[in-house]
C-alpha cells in the first residue's frame, strides 16, 4: 500500500499536512469513507495545531444516535483551549473511539489514524475534497487568527 499524497497549508511558520486519501469537513475534521457507507472522522492537523495537547474529551451523545449536521456532540479540552464539538455530517453515530476517553493524547500523536474520533453512517455529500479543504483554510485562516488573538487580548 503506497503512502497517500500530502497537501500542506502554512499556519504561520507551522506546516499543517493533509493526506489526500480522504475527505474533509469545514469544522476541521477529516472523513474517511468506507464502502459500507460509514465514514470515520478525526481532527485535521489544523485543528490539532490549534488545540495543542489534548487533555480531555467528552461525548454528550451515545452510539446509535441519529445526528444532524452541526449537532453538538461533546466537548474537548486541551492545554490551550476548549471547544464544543459538532457533527461534520448528518447520519447515524455508529461508534465512538472509546480509547480516547482514557488517553486522549492519541489525538496529538496519531491524528490521521489511531486518534480517530467517531464513525458516522450517512452519505456525507457535504464533505470537501482535500483541495476544497485547503481553499476553505485559506478563507478562514485570518478569522481563526483574529478569534484567537481577540480572546487573548481581552
Amino acid at each position, binding site marked *: 500500500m503506497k503512502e497517500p499524497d500530502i497537501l500542506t497549508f502554512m499556519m504561520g511558520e507551522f506546516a499543517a499536512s493533509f493526506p489526500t486519501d480522504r475527505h474533509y469537513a469545514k469544522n*476541521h475534521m477529516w472523513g474517511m469513507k468506507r464502502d459500507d457507507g460509514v465514514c470515520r472522522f478525526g481532527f485535521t492537523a489544523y485543528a490539532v495545531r490549534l*488545540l495543542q495537547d489534548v*487533555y480531555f474529551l467528552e461525548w454528550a451523545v451515545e452510539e446509535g444516535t441519529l445526528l444532524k449536521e452541526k449537532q453538538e456532540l461533546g466537548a474537548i479540552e486541551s492545554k490551550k483551549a*476548549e*471547544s464544543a464539538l459538532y457533527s461534520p455530517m448528518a447520519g447515524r453515530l455508529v461508534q465512538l473511539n472509546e480509547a480516547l476517553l482514557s488517553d486522549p493524547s492519541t489525538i496529538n500523536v496519531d491524528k490521521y489514524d489511531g486518534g480517530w474520533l467517531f464513525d458516522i453512517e450517512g452519505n456525507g455529500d457535504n464533505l470537501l475534497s482535500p483541495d476544497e479543504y485547503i481553499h476553505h483554510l485559506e478563507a478562514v485562516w485570518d478569522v481563526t487568527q483574529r478569534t484567537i488573538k481577540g480572546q487573548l487580548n481581552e
Partner: protein
Amino acid sequence: MAKRIAVVVSQGQSQNPAKRGLEEDIVAALIMEPGIDVTVIPNLYDLKPDGTGILALDGIKGNLIVMSWLYERGARWILDRNNIRGQVGQTLIKADDQDEEDDETDARDDDKERVIDQRQIPSRRIYCIDLRVHDTAQPYIDEIKRIAEENTQKLVQLGDWLQGTAKPEQLERFATPTNTTALGGNGNGKRRPVEETSEPIQPKDVIRIEETGGRRWYPVIDYSRCTNCMECIDFCLFGVYGVDRVETILVEQPDNCRKGCPACSRVCPENAIMFPQHKTPAIAGAPVGLVGLKIDLSKLFGAPDDGKTAEEIAALERDEQLVLAGRDAVGMAVGIRKRQEGKSDEPRDELDDLIDGLDELDL
C-alpha cells in the same frame, strides 16, 4: 492552643497532568503544616449526594477551605446544595483581571429580596479557592497559611472579649457550634446531628476519598442572586426544578437534566443558575467581567454563529433536547416570560414589540 482548619482538594475532571500535579504539590506541602487537615475528593460537582465524598465534607464542622477547578461561586453553591453551609470566607486568590469590587457590588446593589435573605447561615467560614488562577502550589500554600492564621487570631480576639480564659473545649465549641438551631431554617435542609469532636494536634494522614460514577450535569442555584421568580421552573420541560415546603425553588431532580444543555441558565433574569462545567465562563459561575481562562474554539469548530438573544438560544437548546428525548419541539411558545420593563438591559427586539402589540389589542 492550636485550632485546626480543614482543607479539601477537589480533583479536576480531566486527565490533565498539570492539574493532578498541582493538586498533589499542594497536598504534599500541606502535610508538613501543623493544624491543617487535608482531604482529597473527586470533582466536587460530580459527587453523589449520598456518597462518601459528601459524607466526608459533611463531617467537617469547623472552618473549611475548598480548593477546586471551579469558580468560587460554583464551588460555594454546589456545597450549599449539599447542605454544607457557612459564611463566605474572603480569599485573596483572584484571577488578575477580576476586579475586587465585583464581589462587593455583584448583582445585589438593588433592594430586591434574594432567597439567601431568608436563610440562617452557620457561623463557620467556608473559603472557596479556584485552582485555575495560579500554575504553582506556593501561592495556594501561602493563602492557606494566611487563612489558618486569620482564623486563629479571630478566635483569640473573641476569647478576650468574652473575658476570662476559655478552656480549649469551650473554644472548640465556640468555633464549631453544636446547637442544631444554627443549621436548617431554610425549609429544604436536612438537619444532621452534629458530633462533638476532639481532634489530636499532631498532623494526620491525608484522607483520600474515591467515588465511582461518571460526570454529572445539573444546574446549581446561587441563592444570593435568586429571587425565586420561578422562570426556570416554567422554562425547563424536563422536571429538573421543584419547590420546597416553603415554596422556594430548588433543583429537585438534578439527574433529569439534559447533559450539555445550559438553557435554563440563559433564561434566568438574575444570572443565578450556573452549570459549573460549562465552557462559557458566564454560565460556569465566573464573576462579572472575568473572561475565560482558555480560548474557546467552538466558533471555529462549527458552532453556529448568529446574533440570537439568550432566550432564543435557550429555546433552541431546549428544542434540541426535546427532540433527542423523542418529544416535540416547542420553540419560544412555552415557559418564556415576556421580559418586564426595566428588568433587562438589552434593547427591545421584534419579539418584545410583537408581544406588546398583542397586549394592546383589547380582546
